[in-house]
């Protein structure tokens, strides 16, 4: 194209041309005022004096290929004319960016390497418009992005990110503990001392692991006063709950381990006999599920919640046994859950069996 222009040129209008070379080696020539619109080219010309002939063509950055270069030069050619109105420029711009996404990205990249800021802004805004308001699937399709995040990473990014099951567990435990202690204080003043000891130990534990997450719970109890009342009723029924939960849980652990046939027998017999207890406990399980760390619970489905509740109960018991063993358990909780009840804590498992035998005797779980 530029060669045709050279032929038609009138002798009295001698335009001067600048020679540009793209990364692939091809050389183009372009009118000087158009080329000077690009700051990078302008600087090259003024500082190094290159570009005045074919042999001394200005080599453009690698990101500029010939087809994109012609686009950019069209842009420069239009905008470098001083007399155009804003409206004209705007409508040119709007038509100009109606190209496919791939070319738009290349254009942005090339304009950036030539330091042509108005064009970079224009194309960036166009790309932003393609992203704005679209769903992630649509955006991925438009730009051919790989869908390579795990489901977990895809969780709404601004959600509360206390997703670690350990932290959740401990949060729930702490909240539950606090509520029960408050109820206890109302009922019996004498035993406050003991409770306080317990609470402190829970506090220490939690602050060691959690780093003070418990503080945030303070503000939330007010919200759930209704549920507090329900909890009072359940305090009396905790014993029953514990039993039923144990019996529910055992099949999981033991069946997976498949070693202690004896235990299995005991379990089966107990599970049938405690079925009534279980039923009662299940009903009261419902309201227990939603307590005061409401934000964390929001995203769990009921089955998950029940399972975690069971785990918390189990945990609560274990917390009240030996301290060092407790610590170990907690730290290894995420890794070796299956082994914990049988291999690690001889105490716990044996106690569990004795409780099964005692079945319906109300226990002081704490």
């Amino acid at each position, binding site marked *: 194209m530029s060669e045709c222009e050279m032929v038609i040129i009138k002798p009295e209008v001698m335009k001067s041309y600048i020679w540009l070379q793209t990364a692939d080696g091809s050389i183009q020539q372009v009118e000087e005022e158009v080329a000077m619109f690009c700051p990078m080219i302008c600087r090259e010309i003024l500082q190094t004096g290159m570009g005045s002939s074919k042999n001394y063509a200005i080599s453009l950055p690698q990101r500029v290929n010939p087809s994109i270069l012609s686009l950019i030069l069209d842009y420069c050619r239009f905008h470098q004319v001083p007399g155009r109105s804003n409206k004209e420029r705007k409508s040119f711009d709007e038509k100009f960016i109606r190209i496919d996404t791939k070319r738009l990205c290349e254009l942005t990249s090339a304009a950036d390497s030539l330091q042509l800021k108005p064009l970079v802004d224009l194309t960036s805004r166009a790309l932003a418009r393609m*992203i704005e308001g679209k769903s992630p699937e649509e955006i991925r399709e438009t*730009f051919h992005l*790989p869908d390579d*995040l795990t489901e977990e990473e895809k969780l709404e990014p601004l959600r509360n990110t206390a997703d670690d099951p350990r932290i959740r567990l401990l949060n729930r435990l702490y909240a539950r503990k606090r509520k029960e202690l408050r109820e206890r204080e109302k009922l019996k003043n004498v035993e406050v001392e003991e409770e306080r000891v317990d609470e402190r130990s829970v506090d220490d534990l939690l602050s060691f692991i959690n780093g003070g997450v418990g503080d945030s719970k303070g503000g939330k109890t007010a919200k759930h006063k209704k549920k507090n009342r329900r909890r009072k009723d359940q305090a009396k029924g905790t014993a029953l709950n514990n039993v039923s939960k144990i019996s529910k849980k055992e099949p999981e652990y033991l069946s997976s381990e498949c070693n202690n046939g004896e235990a299995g027998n005991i379990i089966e017999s107990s599970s049938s006999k405690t079925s009534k207890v279980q039923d009662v406990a299940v009903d009261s399980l419902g309201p227990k599920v939603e307590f005061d760390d409401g934000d964390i619970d929001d995203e769990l489905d009921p089955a998950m919640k029940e399972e975690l509740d069971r785990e918390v109960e189990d945990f609560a018991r274990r917390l009240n046994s030996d301290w060092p063993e407790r610590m170990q358990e907690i730290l290894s909780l995420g890794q070796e859950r299956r082994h914990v009840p049988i291999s690690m804590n001889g105490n716990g498992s044996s106690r569990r069996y004795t409780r099964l035998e005692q079945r319906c005797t109300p226990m002081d779980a704490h």
Partner: protein
Amino acid sequence: MKTVTSSGCDRISYLPINIIENILVNLPIKDAVRTSILSTEWRYKWATLPKIVFDYESRIKSKLIKIVHQVLLIHVGYIKKFELSGLALRSCSGIDKWILFLSRNAIEELILHIDVGGGGGKYTLPSSLFHCKQLRYLELRGCIFRIPPTSKGLGFNHLKRLRLYNITFVGSTIGCLISSCPLLEILELDDFNGLTDIEVDAPNLILIYLCGSFRRICFKNCPLLVNVAIYKCGYSIGGSNYIDQGRRSNLIKALGGLARIEELKLGNETMKFLATGNIPRKLPHIYNHLRRLYLDCITFCNLKVISVVFCLFKSVPKLQRLEISAQLDKGAPRDMEPVLEFMEEQFHSGCFLNELQVVKMRYIYGMRVELEFLKLLLANAPVLETMCIAPESEVTAAGSNMCKELLRFCRASPKAKILYFEPYEESDED
């Protein structure tokens, strides 16, 4: 699970970081953050966004505080601009921490509109605000601004523009704050209270807008000041509203030191404030650059106010545009005689508005004094081009009388046009 369609491979994710930032900056904050779930490349691209804007368009209805917490926590690097405006906050917990966090991230533009709904007290800004040493632009709304007593570490060395709306000041005077911001160019204080004295010592100040209550004002060192707007409100804390400071008029004290201004707006009770004390015939300084004068709430029956007006007229030889809004002084008697006499004197003292081109009079009633005033202007403005008159809305019957009178007046300028607008008809021409 990589899906590569036939036509494309991923071009956008590998653009240089400055382009990605450019793209994300053009998105509302919600969309920008949501790019983190597009792909692994994009997971934290938004986290270096230099501008975080939570405004009305971002449509965050609930959990705003939480969302801001999360965004700030995940963010990495400098934050150039942070805006929180147009959204109803239910509580102010956490704002302290945000400001502290921003002060550690070299924030340059901070916009906080803290309109706490529900009748709680106003939010008091934390002192960590003064640790934001890189601030260029600060806009605050609806809070209590506590200026620390010592000026050590008080100021913002780079602050160019300060806008405070609906602010209660507590503590030291604002003079300290202003003088500790050496690069300050624009100062806007709208609807403020809690200040007594305003002393403006700002070598780079170009524009100042004040609308609130104060007792005294003076401009000390403002060589570049071009635009001044003072809308004084009644000062309600103890004592008389307009302190008679001995013989020297407030007019001289307030407006002295404004040698280079080009535009002056005075309104609300400023005129009454300036009218206390002895009013000179003309000011000691001549305002050679003042081109536009906007006077609001001129009570034409008040001799002192009119004296101030004429005093100003005599000191502004290059005035080109004059806009006056009249106001009825509800309490005062409508005794026009002193004013009429005064204006009669002025009439014979010669031309003084030699460059006046445009005059706009609003809300006038067609009273004798007002018409005499207009007559005076017409007779003394040799290059006047347009005079627009928009009367008060109740004036319909007297309207045509006013027109007749106006037509009768002689005009010093052959080009003068008189445009009479019906109430509510006026459009802002030129």
